[in-house]
């Protein structure tokens, strides 16, 4: 970890920055294409890639020296997905009989 902090991370920051801008342009472009049922998954997929880049590299989760940080991030995601997953599985199956 200490070897990482001494080398300049600037190149990585600018690479992530460029990737985030490309991702934004890609989202706008993809929204104007007819992808059938895939429009929403593609938009959310790009957003998730962008959010992951921000968390891992700008918020330093990737190089976090404290493992508990990763545990907190993963448990926050887990409970958020639990909320969405259980709620949506209820609403998606109400018409089944």
């Amino acid at each position, binding site marked *: 970890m200490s070897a990482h902090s001494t080398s300049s991370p600037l190149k990585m920051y*600018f690479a992530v*920055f460029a990737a985030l801008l490309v991702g934004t342009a890609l989202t706008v472009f993809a929204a104007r294409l007819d992808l059938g049922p895939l*429009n929403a998954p593609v938009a959310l997929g790009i957003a998730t890639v962008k959010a992951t880049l*921000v*968390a891992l590299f*700008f918020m330093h989760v990737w190089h976090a020296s404290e493992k508990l940080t990763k545990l*907190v991030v993963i448990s*926050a995601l887990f*409970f958020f997905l639990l909320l969405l997953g259980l709620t949506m599985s209820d*609403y998606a199956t109400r018409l089944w009989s």
Partner: protein
Amino acid sequence: MHDNSTVAVHDPALLHHFAEPQQQRDAASLGMWVFLATEVMFFGGLFCAYLVYRRWYFGDFAAASKSINMWLGATNTAVLICSSLTVVLAVWAAQTARRTLLIGSLVLTMLLGFAFLGIKGIEYRDKFVEHHVPGASFSFEHEEIPGHPGQYANPQHAQIFFSLYFVMTGLHALHMIIGLGIFLWLLIMAWKGRFTPEWHTPIEIGGLYWHFVDIVWIYLFPLLYLIDRHK
């Protein structure tokens, strides 16, 4: 003399209940991450409500979404991404004791934050003028559902979209305003030369907050602005 050579010189930036500076930094960022986990739940309830209604009233949501200027939203996404870059530059400047870069990055972050709120204000103004603000003067008559010519959106359902739009972007904007307050404080501290490579915890913690607010917007943009734009 013998004792002095074995006992490390106490770092003035290190609080007494921590063994070493790294542990102190880890504790601070871990605490911030726990707070951000509660923020995920805070926004999560709104995202969940949004998904339920979007599934029920998809056509109405698409029509309502189409009435928002997506280019303002796209510009704001780019503005926030630029501000996230200036925030990591500020953290790096604090780590490497670059005072000018630190102050410049903090000022730029704040300017980008104000630009975001200004663009958001233009967008809100459009919605007020078009009577798309939920309430007594709300109106969304004869708005076609994208891809269904001759079929009009239900104004009541569109009003639910705009309620979610204003609450979600409004809560996000409130976070931006609080973030600007935090960054003003960071700027004053940086100006006074309080931050050193050994101790710049507030910059790191404030940065985590700013990036989190950016991540929320990364999801809000496609969800609110880009429903069925191709139709």
